[in-house]
């Protein structure tokens, strides 16, 4: 029995490795990826709450600001009333996890390399884009992830408002982006 069992174990391991490595060779169908994430999001909804990103990013902003200016930050009502800064806010770790998971995926699939925008205009657009995203998330109190993967599926009224806003914004943004591309 023992030699057979040993052989089975030996033949099993390479197959498993092949299967895992195969995962990092092919591009995954986004429908499968998102369906799996949705199921996990339901589990997280049951124990803590639905997937969001903006909240964690805001807390990180607060932590960075506190690191730079210390307790002076609390003189701003936003950071004392809305978002008191503390490091054990779970949403921070979703974002850090995404960074880690993507890094692992990119390294194992040999897709990790430094990509640098070439033109000054790209840097400028990204800067404006980042500022608008950050300002917009806090003005709305929610981000795009909480809109599509939290509020909308909970049928929160805010989800419909947010979705209308993001669609209108994406449409206006696309029009401007198209004009800029044509002008180049």
């Amino acid at each position, binding site marked *: 029995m023992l030699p057979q069992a040993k052989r089975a174990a030996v033949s099993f391991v390479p197959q498993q490795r092949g299967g895992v490595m195969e995962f*990092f060779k092919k591009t*995954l169908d986004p429908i499968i990826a998102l369906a799996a*994430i949705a199921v996990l999001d339901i589990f997280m909804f049951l124990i803590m709450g639905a997937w*969001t990103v903006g909240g964690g990013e805001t807390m990180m902003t607060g932590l960075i600001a506190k690191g730079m200016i210390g307790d002076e930050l609390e003189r701003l009502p*936003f950071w004392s009333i809305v*978002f008191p800064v503390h490091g054990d806010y779970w949403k921070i770790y979703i974002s850090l996890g995404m960074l880690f998971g993507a890094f692992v995926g990119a390294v194992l699939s040999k897709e990790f390399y430094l*990509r640098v925008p070439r033109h000054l205009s790209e840097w400028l657009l990204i800067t404006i884009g980042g500022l608008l995203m950050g300002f917009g*998330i806090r003005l709305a109190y929610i981000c795009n992830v909480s809109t*599509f993967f939290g509020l909308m599926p*909970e049928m929160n009224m805010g989800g419909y408002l947010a979705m209308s806003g993001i669609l209108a914004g994406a449409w206006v943004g696309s029009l401007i982006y198209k004009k800029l591309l044509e002008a180049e």
Partner: protein
Amino acid sequence: MMTPVAECFVAFLFGSVAGLLMQRSRFCNTAALRDAIMFKTYRNTKAMLVAMMILTIGFTGFMSLGAGHPLQFDVGLNTFAGLFLFGIGMVFAGACTVSTWVKTGEGNLGALWALIFTFVGMFLFSLVWSASWWPPAPQTMTGQINAPALQLGFANAQTLGEKFGVPAIVFGLVQTVVLFGLYRGILKRERAQHAEHEKHEREHARKKAEKAAKAAAANQTA
């Protein structure tokens, strides 16, 4: 009740799996909206709709049983305005909140730059809010309409269920059917695009064959 450390661990685990799957599938929320608007391609849009259908059934199903932790805060015109700005921003930056993290993990310095300025944008908002105190902080929200503050109160599948005396899942199923209708509409559009593409290919091949035949005939005459 979980300890904060356990919550952080679960969140990190979820984020890691989500980040890995996003990286391997090249899913991007920005692309889901931008590509549908600009290029009429729906690879990411379909995935987003499938996730929303699963989540709607899951969330409203558990909400019917009184389980889960729905987001609780009032919404108002700031919700629309904020996401409007966000929508423009994500197209400019070429990444949303998810893809800034995922692309940064892949070594994209542009995405890291977008992330840094998202933080800067958030801090700028905190300054503006601290000076104006608008819109109201979540602590001052009442769940009711607050016209002077442009707030519309709070409602979700659970409150709708309580108001109409039916389980939240009923509303969830209605929403799922609507989302499925959109998904089917996209599939139909893709089939039409494919048929159109094939028609052009056939037309192109026919013209090429005709040209070749004409050239051959001209050669023979010569």
